């Protein structure tokens, strides 16, 4: 990047370091932080949506829908989340390819599962064999995102379901007494009030989500863990910047990165809790009231 970096063998010390840390590969490493942040930014609202739907399904009057909600919210309790992260992307990929196979190649007679292979016609492949590299990478990121949304949606559904039940019954009864329909009670009374009860759980969920992002690496996405291993591995003298095994320093940097993320989030979430507690009939709200008086 700098002009004096043209011949890395001739420089030393901090100059060498400044050149080393600004190589193209290192910028790919810095960019991969954006991948993590993008995943967080997209997975959080998606998981909330899944969670909200899950909690609503669990409260539904229609029994099969309620059972589905119960299964969805309970599935994460007994099974490690990493199993879902391994299962969902590949299952989703095969499901999509199978559907496309049925639609695009109806006259294909051979079975899709042949022994230990999963064979669909070329037109049904996802992404198509001819598509450029970035499509493959985006598709990989997309399946990972769905896996995150499903797993964290289930956690969020647990939290939101609990929060919906925590809203004082009297509030809902009052609304009914005013002649509100069930739908209106839900949207106008229950939903606005449930957030303060959901917040502790949701804050926790956010922390868990941050700490789950390195799992992207397991799903084949080139995230910060991938680059830390790639860059940290020992480089022989054939490379411009030879160095021994430095992975420990790269992982230390990752550790600090995650500690900063969780520390910062804790501060922000603490503020939001304070704001939402204002005027609520909870212990936190009572403390705020007393402090002001």
């Amino acid at each position, binding site marked *: 990047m700098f002009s004096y970096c043209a011949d890395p063998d001739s420089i030393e010390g901090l100059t060498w370091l400044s050149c080393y840390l600004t190589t193209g590969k290192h910028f790919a490493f810095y960019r991969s932080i954006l991948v993590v942040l993008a995943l967080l930014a997209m997975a959080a609202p998606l998981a909330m949506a899944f969670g909200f739907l899950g909690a609503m399904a669990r409260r539904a009057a229609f029994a099969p829908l309620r059972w589905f909600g119960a299964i969805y919210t309970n599935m994460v309790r007994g099974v490690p*989340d990493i199993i879902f992260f*391994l299962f969902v992307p590949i299952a989703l990929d095969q499901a999509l390819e199978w559907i496309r196979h049925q639609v695009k190649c109806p006259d294909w007679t051979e079975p899709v599962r042949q022994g230990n292979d*999963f064979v669909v016609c070329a037109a049904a492949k996802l992404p198509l064999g001819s598509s450029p590299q970035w499509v493959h990478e985006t598709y990989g990121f997309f399946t990972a995102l769905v896996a995150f949304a499903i797993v964290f949606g289930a956690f969020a559904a647990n939290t939101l379901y609990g929060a919906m039940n925590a809203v004082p019954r009297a509030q809902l009864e009052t609304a009914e007494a005013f002649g509100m329909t069930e739908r209106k009670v839900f949207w106008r009374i229950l939903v606005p009030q449930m957030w303060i009860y959901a917040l502790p759980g949701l804050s926790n969920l956010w922390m868990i989500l941050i700490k789950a992002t390195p799992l992207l690496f397991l799903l084949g996405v080139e995230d910060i863990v991938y680059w830390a291993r790639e860059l940290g591995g020992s480089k022989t003298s054939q490379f411009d910047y030879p160095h021994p095994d430095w992975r420990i320093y790269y992982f230390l940097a990752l550790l600090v990165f995650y500690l900063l993320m969780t520390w910062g989030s804790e501060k922000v979430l603490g503020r939001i809790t304070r704001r939402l507690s204002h005027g609520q009939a909870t212990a936190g709200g009572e403390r705020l009231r007393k402090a002001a008086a």
Partner: protein
Amino acid sequence: MICGEAISKYALRAVTSNPDYVERLLPRTDFPLCDQVVLIGSGLIWNIYYAVLALFFGFFFATAIAVAKASQQPVLSWLARTFIFIFRGSPLFIQFFLAYETFTLIPKVGIDIPLGFTTITAETAWLTRAWLGALIVLFLNTSAYSAEIFYGALQSIPKGDIEAADAYGLSGFKRFRRVIFPSMLRLAWPSYTNEAIFLFHATTLVYFSGFPAWRQSADALYYANYFADKTFNPFVAYPIIAVYFILFTLLIIGLFGLVNTRLNRHLPADHRRKFTFRPTLIR
């Protein structure tokens, strides 16, 4: 017997590759359901090993850290807080990576430990093996999470309990052992049950992050992943491991529930704290 052949071949494959006891080669071309069920179940030995030992040792260390965090000594309290912050604030995945890289840098030497009747040579190379290295990480990790739970419980011990202990003339360690510790444990137990469940789930990360499997002897998820990769079919191996984990989760809830009943035996039924699932403690 159901799956008799598979059991005789693979029941102990996760712990040894010695051909006297097990079939050394994993299935390669065809993958009968029995082989998958038995091998994944064999891998569970490791999950149980990590969970039981880490929880057992972690319990005592966590109690010490919780007491340190609650102590009046600023240095002690700061140390405990920092320890908890580092292990709770970073992903377990990164902790495994970092620990493995650190352990590989330690020079390989043997240290003789005299035991009186015999001497064993502890090698530092063991640290790079999953059975010790990963166990240490899990132990420290669960200590940090449990310490936070225990600290919370210490803070919410009823004032009256401690005043009563003072009135009886109990002080120092005796007061801790007879009054504070049992109350802390009783209050913390429902959350601690959650911690045990999620630590058990977290053991699946061992062979996926840093620590290599030695001669293909590894935990349940390693085999489930092996089968899913080989057969290109995630709809068999992953449900099998999921069922195993659900069963063991129920077992943990049952066992910890028994302890909870005992811890609460002096209280009227409506004052007892019950276990509620709270996913607050996933790494």
